[in-house]
C-alpha cells in the first residue's frame, strides 16, 4: 500500500491518460477519449496547480495515482473548481408536492423533477478512473478522498459546497431509459448520439432545450421512473466512497441520464472533519493505524496511504519523501477500507 502515490498530473502522463480514457466506459467517464482534449486537460491542470494568480473558478485539477512498485499510473481523479464556470450548471432537483382533494378523498405525494441551477458554482469532483485490478484494494480511497484534503488545504480556491455527478443506468446498448423518456422527446436522438453531440458543448445550451416546467415522475414510463437516481454499475465504487464521506444523494439527479448528483458542504465531509495537521518527526508515537497523509501545498501536492501513529516519521510516509519538521494533513481511514 505504501507503493501508491497520488500526485498532480504531469505532461509526461499523456500516454497513460489515453490508455485510461480508452478503458473507461464510453460516455460514462468525464475523461475524454481524445488526445487533443486530454492534452488540454493536462495543460489546464498544470496551470491550475502552478499559477500564482488568484483562482477565477475556471481551474480544473487532475490527479494521477501512481503504483511506484509497478512503475505505472493506475488511476486518475479530478476537481473542477466551479461547476458551470462559463455558464449555468443544470440539475433536476427532486421535489415532492402533495396533491389533495377532499371531495375525491385523495391526498398523495407526487414526485416531481425541477430543472434548476442550484449547483452552479459548487466545486465538482470529476474524472474518477481506477484500473480494475486495483478496485478491491484501498487505492480508490486514496484516489477519491485525497481531493477533499486538497480542497480543504486550498479552500480559498474552491466553493464551500462540493458536488459530484455519477453515471446513470444504461442498458447493454448504451441506451438510457431516463433519456428515452425525457431528453429524447426534446432532442429527437438517442443517448449515445446525444452524448456525442453534447461532448465539447456547454451542457447549459443543451439544457435550454428541456422543458422548464416540472416533470411529474408519475407521467414517465416505469423504466424511466425506476432509473431516477440509479447508478451505473461502473459508478458504484466511487459513489460508495462519497456516500461514506457523508454526501447527500437524494436531492439532485443528472438531467440527461437520471444518475445521482451528490452534494454536501465541504466542512461536513468525514475526511475533512477528521483531518488534523501533523508534524513529521524522527520518532513516531501513539497507536499505529491507517491514515491518508497529504502534503497539502498546491505546488507539490501529494498523498499516500500509510500506517502511522500520532507522530508521523519519514519512514511512515516514504513515498511522500517527507522530512522531519514538515507539516502534513492526516485523516484516518476506516480499518475495513484500508484492509
Amino acid at each position, binding site marked *: 500500500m505504501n507503493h501508491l502515490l497520488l500526485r498532480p498530473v504531469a505532461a509526461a502522463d499523456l500516454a497513460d491518460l489515453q490508455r485510461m480514457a480508452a478503458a473507461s466506459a464510453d460516455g460514462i467517464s468525464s475523461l475524454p477519449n481524445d488526445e487533443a482534449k486530454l492534452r488540454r486537460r493536462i495543460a489546464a491542470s498544470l496551470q491550475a496547480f502552478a499559477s500564482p494568480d488568484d483562482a477565477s473558478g475556471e481551474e480544473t485539477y487532475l490527479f494521477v495515482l501512481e503504483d511506484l512498485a509497478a512503475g505505472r499510473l493506475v488511476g486518475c481523479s479530478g476537481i473542477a473548481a466551479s461547476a458551470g464556470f462559463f455558464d449555468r450548471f443544470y440539475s433536476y432537483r427532486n421535489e415532492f408536492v402533495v*396533491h389533495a382533494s377532499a*371531495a*375525491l378523498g385523495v391526498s398523495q405525494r407526487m414526485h416531481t423533477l425541477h430543472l434548476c441551477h442550484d449547483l452552479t458554482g459548487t466545486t465538482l469532483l470529476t474524472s474518477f478512473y481506477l484500473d480494475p485490478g486495483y478496485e478491491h484494494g484501498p487505492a480508490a480511497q486514496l484516489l477519491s478522498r485525497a481531493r477533499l484534503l486538497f480542497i480543504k488545504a486550498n479552500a480559498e480556491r474552491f466553493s464551500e459546497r462540493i458536488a459530484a455527478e455519477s453515471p446513470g443506468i444504461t442498458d447493454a446498448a448504451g441506451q438510457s431509459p431516463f433519456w428515452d423518456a425525457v431528453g429524447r422527446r426534446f432532442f429527437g436522438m438517442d443517448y449515445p448520439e446525444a452524448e456525442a453531440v453534447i461532448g465539447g458543448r456547454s451542457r447549459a445550451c443543451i439544457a435550454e432545450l428541456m422543458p422548464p*416546467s416540472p416533470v411529474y415522475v408519475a407521467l414517465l414510463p416505469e423504466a424511466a421512473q425506476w432509473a431516477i437516481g440509479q447508478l451505473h454499475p461502473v459508478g458504484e465504487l466511487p459513489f460508495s466512497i462519497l456516500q461514506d464521506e457523508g454526501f447527500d444523494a437524494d436531492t439532485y439527479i443528472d438531467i440527461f441520464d437520471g444518475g445521482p448528483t451528490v452534494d454536501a458542504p465541504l466542512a461536513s465531509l468525514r475526511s475533512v472533519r477528521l483531518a488534523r495537521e501533523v508534524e513529521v518527526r524522527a520518532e513516531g508515537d501513539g497507536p499505529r493505524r491507517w491514515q491518508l497523509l497529504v502534503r497539502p501545498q498546491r505546488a507539490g501536492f501529494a498523498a499516500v496511504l500509510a500506517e502511522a501513529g500520532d507522530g508521523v516519521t519519514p519512514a511512515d510516509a516514504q513515498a511522500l519523501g517527507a522530512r522531519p519538521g514538515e507539516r502534513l494533513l492526516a485523516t484516518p481511514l476506516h480499518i475495513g477500507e484500508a484492509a
Partner: protein
Amino acid sequence: MNDIHISAETDGQRFSLADGSASLLLVPRLGLTLPRYHFHIGRVVHAAQDLGLFRVQTTLLLGNDHTGQAELTDLRVAQGLAAAEQTAALWRLISAAQAAMAEKPADFGDWLVAELPGWRDAAGNSPVWQALGARFYAGDPLQAEARLGPAWRSHLAALLPRQAVYLSFLGEAAERRLAQPADAALAALAALQAAGFQPPAHARIDDGGPVLTWRIAGRAP
C-alpha cells in the same frame, strides 16, 4: 313546423325543438361559483440553431381561462336521427342561442364556450385519461362524475399538475386523441363548426374532449 322553445332554468335558458328531438342549455356566465378548469393547448418551440434542432412541443396548461364566459352545455339530440339531421337540429338551437346572446350582450360573457366529451375506444377507455388523469387519481372517473356531477372536474383539477405538461410525455395514443370528440359527439362538433365556433384551443381535463369557442362579431377579443 318544428319551433324552438326557450324556457328558463336555474342555470340559464334551455333551447329545445318542439318535437323534443334536441335541446341545449345556454348559461350566461360559467365558473363563478365553483371554479371551472380546462387545459389550454399551447405550443413551445425548443430551438438550437447550432445543433440543427427545431422541436415544436404541445403543452397543456391547467387554468380557468373561460371563467365568466357564456356556455352552451347539456347538448342533447335524439341518437336515432341520422348524423346530418342531428347536426341540423343542433345547429338550429346553437344559432338561436347565439342570436339571444347577440341581442343582449351585456347579459353574457364575452364569448361562448362549448365542451364536448373526449374520444374513447370501443371498450370505453379514454387514452388521454389513462395517460394523464389516471396517474393522479386512481379511482374510476365515471363513478366520480356520477357522484359529483359536473363539479367532478373542478375537484380533479386539484390533483393535476399546475404547470405546463408536455403532451409528448403522454405517449402517442393520448397525443393523437387530444381534443377529439367521442363518436357520439361528432354531430355536435359539426353543428358547432357550422355555427362559426373556432377549432379547440382548450381541452377537458379528464378525457381531453375538445372545448370550442365562439365570439360575438364586433366584440373586442
